[in-house]
């Protein structure tokens, strides 16, 4: 179509300004790619720090040597490096990324900036599942011992998301209904966990309280492998839905009128979120704050084009959790504080700095 402006036909100056817009848009894309790269670099630094700090006081040279030649060093060093430092540092990144992505998709499909696996009951449901195993000894048959608690937590967490989905499909349900129901789930599961705590023996109570604090210390290599594999399978589907999700942000009816099958997009996203966030929280306990703030940080830094917003939220989540893991080691020398406690303390200043900056895209 020939583009006449309301005041008349196209002028040569219009063509010039269109070229300027193209250049500005290209610059914006480059800027966003750089921000993603900076986040990625920061994560690498943070992982390095996370890996090299600790009460054992191993020097960087010792660490590197143990990493490269694990069987030439004493068993204690090998265990510290290979069974503690490295898996914890990597798990922080995997869990942070999983929660960041889940939170971002959840906020989009529910059109609510307060949505996250934490605020809508996924974490609380996981805690309830864990409490069934820890207090009552209820668990699914056939699972190896080290997976019993995580197995329970996973099933309950995923169940809570299916409940959300179910409510979303009730007649007359709106997205706000789903959010309210999710908040109700948080309180319900918290009450149930309190009930379990009330009934628990002293040992079980200690285990349960510690579980709900959220900690990376339950990490094992198979768990990292499972979470990473699931992420690798799910992430391409999330990224493929980027345009539909971006359109959905402009309004449900508008997205539908532009040809987006809103119920299908929403349901597929909820399925991805449920798998990813349930697995993440079932391995590390309640580390919920990340899924809530990472999307806000990504939105401020990158805008809401989901091609950048989704990876941005993943990286922001990974960075926050990795930094939290570092802080958890440094706060009290010789003690590793449960990461869940530190996350909010680390995340809030980071969050406020970015969200309170002046608005604007460039």
């Amino acid at each position, binding site marked *: 179509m020939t*583009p006449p402006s309301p005041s008349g036909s196209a002028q040569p100056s219009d063509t010039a300004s269109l070229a300027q*817009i193209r250049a500005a*848009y290209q610059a914006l894309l480059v800027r966003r790619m750089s921000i993603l790269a900076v986040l990625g670099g920061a994560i690498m630094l943070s992982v390095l720090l996370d890996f090299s700090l600790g009460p054992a006081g191993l020097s960087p040279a010792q660490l590197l040597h143990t990493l490269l030649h694990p069987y030439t060093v004493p068993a204690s060093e090998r265990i510290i490096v290979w069974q503690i430092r490295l898996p914890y540092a990597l798990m922080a990144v995997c869990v942070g990324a999983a929660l960041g992505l889940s939170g971002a998709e959840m906020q989009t499909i529910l059109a609510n900036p307060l949505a996250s696996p934490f605020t809508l009951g996924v974490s609380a449901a996981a805690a309830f599942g864990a409490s069934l195993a820890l207090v009552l000894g209820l668990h699914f048959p056939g699972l190896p011992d080290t997976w019993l608690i995580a197995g329970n937590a996973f099933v309950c967490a995923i169940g809570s998301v299916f409940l959300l989905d179910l409510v979303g499909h009730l007649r007359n349900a709106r997205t706000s209904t789903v959010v309210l129901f999710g908040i109700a789930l948080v309180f319900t599961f918290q009450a149930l966990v309190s009930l379990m705590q009330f009934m628990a023996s002293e040992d079980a109570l200690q285990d349960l309280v510690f579980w709900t604090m959220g900690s990376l210390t339950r990490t094992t290599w198979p768990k990292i492998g499972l979470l990473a594999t699931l992420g690798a399978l799910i992430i391409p589907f999330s*990224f493929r839905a980027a*345009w539909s999700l971006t359109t959905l942000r*402009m309004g449900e009816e508008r997205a539908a*009128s532009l040809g987006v099958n809103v119920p299908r997009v929403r349901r597929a996203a909820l399925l991805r979120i449920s798998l990813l966030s349930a697995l993440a929280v079932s391995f590390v306990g309640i580390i919920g704050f990340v899924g809530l703030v990472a999307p806000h940080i990504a939105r401020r830094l990158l805008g809401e084009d989901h091609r950048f917003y989704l990876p941005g939220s993943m990286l922001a989540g990974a960075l926050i959790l990795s930094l939290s893991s570092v802080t958890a080691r440094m706060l009290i020398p010789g003690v590793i504080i449960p990461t869940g406690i530190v996350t909010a303390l680390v995340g809030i200043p980071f969050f406020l700095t970015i969200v309170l900056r002046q*608005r604007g895209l460039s």
Partner: protein
Amino acid sequence: MTSESAPSPQTGLIATQVTVRYGRRTVLHDVTAGPFAPGAVCALLGPNGSGKSTLMRAMAGLVPSSARVMLKGAELSRMNLTDRTKRCLYLPQALPAAVHLPVLEALIAARQTAGPARAFPAFGAPEEDAIQSALESLTLFGIPHLAMQAMDELSGGQRQLVGLAQALSRKPEALLLDEPLSALDLHHQFAVMDILRRETAAHQLVTVLVLHDLNIALNMTDFVTVLHEGQMIAAGPPAAVLTPDLLREAYRVRARVEEGADGRKFVSVDGIA
């Protein structure tokens, strides 16, 4: 750009047997709308709650209905939503949400939703023709200067213009616009009507819009359809349809249709009936 000769059902947009129920309430009962001719700007009029938006949504396939909708000989009501919205686009009354997204990208996204994004699209620019048609559409509405502004920095009227630009950048064959002038100032109301008339004629679009301003309907549209309580009560050229009797029946007002010195007609409302 007139509808002096009756449009043939083969060329325009026509919806028959439109019945829509929300729960137990029947909003539209066996309505036939159209045929709306290509190249003519058609207004859909009626008081609040008369079923205008619902009729549009039914024609676009966005609410479940028994409607049979034909566009230029093709049966829209048998197509899937993606194909259907490529041909016949409904622009909702709600403005595009104030999201943190550059205007240009809001337009690109509206184009790209037709197909899936690449698996790792962050590492590839959007298709060139999406950028091109986004820029053309912004220029058409005189808002290229907003291209790099975020949607959450715009006024309501500006967002309405962006919504219109989104719709036209998809280059549909039929446009169903639900109150496209609601947030615009006087200048932009007339500017947008001019643009719509020009584009409709140039591309032989089927353009139907819900309007509340009867004077715009009288002077700037070619065909009007009036809905009242879920029934179509009149259709035809605006000057023939918009009579004092009709205004009393549909809008419950006492009104006169007068002619100005330049021959333009205008509705003057004396009070409620």
